[in-house]
């Protein structure tokens, strides 16, 4: 589905991604974890074609929808308009199925997106991504600034979409615990390089990931 090989991205002279390789198969749930500034968002922007790559290859079989960090809605437009614009590349522009999927949005369809709560805005952002009928949904920092209960509700919806529709997920998260609990596999990114990868369960148990990302003990770890 997504095949990235030796990807390098630079902003001026600053290296943002340095030889990153990553794969996401159809229907898979993959996490990309790492600290702030590790290059996670840059990787998603490179997949979306927003930033240019210096070298390496990106191949995407199917349609990718990118839900950006900070929601990035059109705040002056209504919820309905935000969702409809998600289908700009083509396909059905009727968002009724999104309202069935995320019923909390239905009574707010005429409301300005900028006036919604953080959780509702994240739902609109995910709904807008889904409107393009993607094969893979890449979500950048879904949990940022949201109450744990809201995150759990959104996560449950994503898992349902993955199970029922075979939608592949690429979750980019600073919250490693959440990402590793939701996904099958994970990549750990540090200063533009993949420093660890493998099944999520294995990474959860690795002392390196525990120390660096799950708040585990620092002493004695190599």
């Amino acid at each position: 589905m997504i095949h990235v090989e030796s990807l390098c991205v630079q902003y001026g002279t600053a290296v943002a991604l340095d030889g990153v390789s990553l794969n996401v198969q159809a229907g898979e749930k993959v996490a990309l974890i790492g600290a702030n500034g590790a290059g996670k968002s840059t990787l998603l922007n490179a997949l979306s074609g927003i930033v240019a790559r210096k070298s390496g290859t990106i191949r995407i079989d199917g349609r990718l929808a990118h839900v950006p960090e900070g929601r990035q809605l059109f705040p002056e437009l209504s919820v309905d308009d935000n969702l409809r614009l998600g289908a700009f590349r083509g396909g059905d522009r009727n968002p009724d199925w999104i309202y069935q999927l995320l019923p909390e949005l239905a009574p707010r369809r005429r409301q300005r997106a900028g006036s919604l709560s953080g959780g509702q805005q994240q739902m609109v952002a995910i709904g807008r991504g889904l409107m393009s009928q993607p094969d893979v949904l890449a979500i950048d920092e879904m949990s940022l600034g949201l109450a744990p209960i809201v995150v759990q509700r959104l996560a449950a919806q994503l898992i349902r979409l993955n199970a029922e529709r075979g939608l592949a997920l690429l979750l980019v998260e600073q919250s490693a615990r959440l990402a590793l609990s939701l996904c099958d596999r994970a990549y750990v990114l540090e200063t533009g390089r993949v420093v660890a990868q493998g099944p999520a369960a294995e990474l959860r148990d690795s002392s390196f990931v525990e120390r660096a990302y799950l708040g585990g003990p620092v002493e004695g770890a190599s």
Partner: protein
Amino acid sequence: MSAFISYLVHGISVGCGFALVASGIIIIYRVTRVVNLAQGMFSVVAGFAAATLLGVGLPHGLAELGAIGLAAAVGVATGCVAIAKPGTSPQASLIATLGVGIFAYAVEILGWGDQPRSFSGLSGAYEFWGIDVPKQYLLVTLVTFVVFGGLEAFFERTYTGKALSACASNPYAARLQGIGVLRMGLYGFALGGALGGVAGVLLTPLQPISYDSDVSLFVNGFASAILAGLKRPVLGLVGGLVLGIAESMVAGYAKASYQSSLALLLTLAILVAQATRREALHAVEE
């Protein structure tokens, strides 16, 4: 009383012209975040072109449409200069539009000379309650209201209108949805050019235009646009009407030469008021 109504009718018609220029400024700003200093030039080009096309025998209607089309094309060309280079800031684009406007002086003088030009519009007048209202005034008002109705419907009801608004609202998110921000920006400039053109062909029969008429058109259009907060075109209509009527009253009851000073004073007052708003000050502090 009849003098007051006569000034009012004149003010509404002139205000409609300001509103058309303002709507072009608002639309281009709304889509690209660029204040287009060449907006008055679109009206001048259209006025000159309509005079030329009528001069070679084209009938009314066709000549004006051709002139509006040319203004739209000039709008696209201005947009190419102002925003086509990736990474150009709105401030740099603003300076580029100023450059285009000054360059246009040379082209207009070469093409049409430096003397004012005009052409005849609708002749005659209708009488309402004992006051003669020139037919051209009514045409300007009618066309303006139809154009603004169309613009409101376009931005509020159509998918392309929403996509244009999305570009201004959040260009990054617009690109993620596959919306071509540059293409939409050029659509904005084309629409802005056409609206400037409509103002040009409607106002030229009322007041001859010359190559440097763009300054007064822009000043009045910009004053109307910021009166509307540079947000919705339909608010530009309100701004244009307020300014047009105020100027007409000043010219009627005081002195005609105070008219343009009024627009400048109004612009200054609004800019100072907006700059001292609490949010604006906080934005600077951040």
